[in-house]
């Protein structure tokens, strides 16, 4: 009896407190007494955006407007993300993509096309190593905080990423609270805005069920395996052994672009060597296949590359240049301007490999075999000259210096290894690069963006 009375009193007390709380007018919390936190640095904001997918769940509607085959196309997609790497994309419009579903679990991406009742299984669109590209991006881009802005009622930092060389310039609207990119704009130097994305609606911390990120296709679905690329980190020498035909390495590329890996691309009887170069924010891909295994596409316009026939295809956001040399059909894909792609192709066609090996080894005062070995690792001639100069100045091994030049070893990490201050290391690298004569004998019409003795580590 006593226990019942005590329980009743407790319940009455809880109800009374709850009632009082509900009846009481809302009192805004007092403003913090300490000073407002300082605005984080642009790099800190960028890193916050990189970290966000690991920490935040969201679900929203995104609008994408992209240049495609000479026209702007608007696509609406329902995008859901569950940390750390579950992604569900359901395309809503236009009609020809409506119903397309892509589910990516960080390992495999499954793309279901309802009109065809087909399911494409592919490797993930998400690369866990993407964050590691930050070192390269930070080296090759000016990251500037333009201010703050409001996107769908949320405060966002506006970051600008401008490449030192050539390529697409980006602006990102990063949510102040979560780090999620709420809006982005990609601009091309010659054509202006080529891609915009923004959330028209977004909700956070929904605790989305994992089942939402599994897809069970309807009965009778035809499943197509699309794992076309294998062995993503091979160097050109290993790649050559895999494909069984010579793999050509570009002699020079726009400033900042460095070798990021090679792979074999296979589909049916078409086997291609795939080399990719990146400046951290943009990629140029080279696909090389025996000329006899693939003909000329009907798309695009015919062009001449160093008097050789070629074909240029402007897809909008991406550009494609195809040409033939030494029995190979080479295809370059990227966001780089068409003139840059043409120039890179021209240098490859010039085929002055042996002369440039001799020239660079003389200028860098190293033996030709070292130059050849570095070429087989995918380095361009300016990168080789830079690697030799830095290795000599810092006393680091060639392997370590290559990692540093490739951007897989940051200034901070190398400085720690050498027990130096990062600023002192930067200065030493700058001196080494400036004092050496690093301009290899490239064709006179080299693009302005090509490295010419000025490294920005």
């Amino acid at each position, binding site marked *: 009896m006593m226990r019942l009375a005590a329980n009743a009193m407790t319940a009455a007390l809880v109800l009374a407190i709850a009632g009082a709380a509900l009846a009481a007018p809302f009192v805004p919390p007092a403003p913090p007494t300490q000073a407002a936190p300082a605005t984080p640095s642009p790099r800190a904001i960028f890193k916050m955006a990189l970290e966000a997918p690991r920490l935040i769940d969201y679900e929203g509607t995104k609008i*994408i407007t992209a240049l495609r085959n000479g026209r702007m196309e608007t*696509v609406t997609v329902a995008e859901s993300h569950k940390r750390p790497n579950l992604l569900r994309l359901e395309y809503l419009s236009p009609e020809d993509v409506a119903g397309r579903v892509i589910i990516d679990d960080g390992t495999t991406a499954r793309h279901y096309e309802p009109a065809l009742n087909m399911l494409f299984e592919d490797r993930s669109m998400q690369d866990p190593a993407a964050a590691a590209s930050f070192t390269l991006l930070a080296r090759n881009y000016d990251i500037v905080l333009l201010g703050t802005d409001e996107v769908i009622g949320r405060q966002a930092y506006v970051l600008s990423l401008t490449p030192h060389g050539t390529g697409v310039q980006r602006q990102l609207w990063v949510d102040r609270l979560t780090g999620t990119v709420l809006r982005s704009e990609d601009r091309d130097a010659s054509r202006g805005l080529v891609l915009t994305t923004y959330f028209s609606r977004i909700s956070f911390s929904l605790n989305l069920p994992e089942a939402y990120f599994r897809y069970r296709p309807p009965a009778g679905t035809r499943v197509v395996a699309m794992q*076309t690329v294998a062995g993503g980190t091979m160097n050109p020498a290993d790649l050559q052994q895999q494909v069984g035909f010579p793999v050509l390495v570009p002699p020079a590329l726009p400033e900042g672009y460095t070798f990021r890996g090679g792979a074999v691309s296979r589909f049916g009887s078409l086997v291609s060597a795939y080399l990719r170069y990146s400046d951290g924010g943009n990629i140029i891909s080279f696909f090389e296949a025996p000329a006899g295994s693939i003909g000329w596409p009907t798309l695009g316009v015919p062009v001449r590359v160093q008097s050789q026939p070629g074909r240029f295809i402007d897809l909008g956001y991406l550009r494609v240049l195809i040409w033939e040399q030494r029995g190979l059909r080479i295809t370059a894909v990227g966001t780089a301007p068409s003139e840059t792609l043409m120039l890179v192709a021209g240098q490859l066609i010039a085929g002055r490999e042996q002369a440039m090996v001799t020239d660079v080894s003389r200028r860098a005062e190293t033996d030709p075999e070292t130059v050849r070995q570095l070429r087989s690792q995918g380095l361009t001639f300016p990168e080789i000259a830079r690697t030799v100069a830095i290795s000599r100045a810092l006393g680091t091994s060639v392997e370590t210096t290559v990692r540093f030049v490739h951007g897989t070893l940051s200034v901070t990490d190398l400085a720690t290894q050498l027990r130096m201050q990062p600023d002192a290391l930067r200065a030493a690298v700058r001196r080494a690069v400036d004092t050496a004569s690093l301009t290899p004998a490239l064709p006179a019409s080299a693009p302005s963006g090509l490295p010419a003795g000025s490294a920005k580590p």
Partner: protein
Amino acid sequence: MNHHRAGRLLSAYVDSELTAAETRAVQEHLLDCADCRNAYENLRAMRELLAGLPPAEPPAEFWAGIRGPVLRARAAAAGAPEEGLRAAWAFARERLRSWVVVRRPGWALAAVLVVLALAALPLVKGTVDRLHATEIGVDLYVHDHALQMGSTPLVDRAYVGLVAGDAELVIAGETPRPAGDAAR
């Protein structure tokens, strides 16, 4: 190679009767000429049609005409079996040839076409593969490039999915989506 010459050589090309240089020239022309590709496909289809004809039983007198002389030759050549068999085989071969060529020219043609088809199979397959690679090559490369864009920090994955998904449809043999919705 011009269109008319390629057209004249097409039948010989299907029958694998051309020199290596002519074969290469016709292949190059096929990649660029839709009309000749159609003609080539028609020739190939006709050959397959002939190859698919059902086997027919030879008439009863055919075997009777062969078996008798063979047995007689075998009996006569008891002391020299090799000579006897050779004679019997020569006789049978001669009868078979005259029967097939004279009385069943359709069979003879079909047999020749089947043999030619088998001989030309690797060549035809290589050409078809090449034509297919030509159709999908650019989309295959764009697909692989788009997926690599995922290694770029903060790239928009919904856009990557759109580009890669469109390319996958073309690779699977579907018609590409039409261009965007507003002229730039």
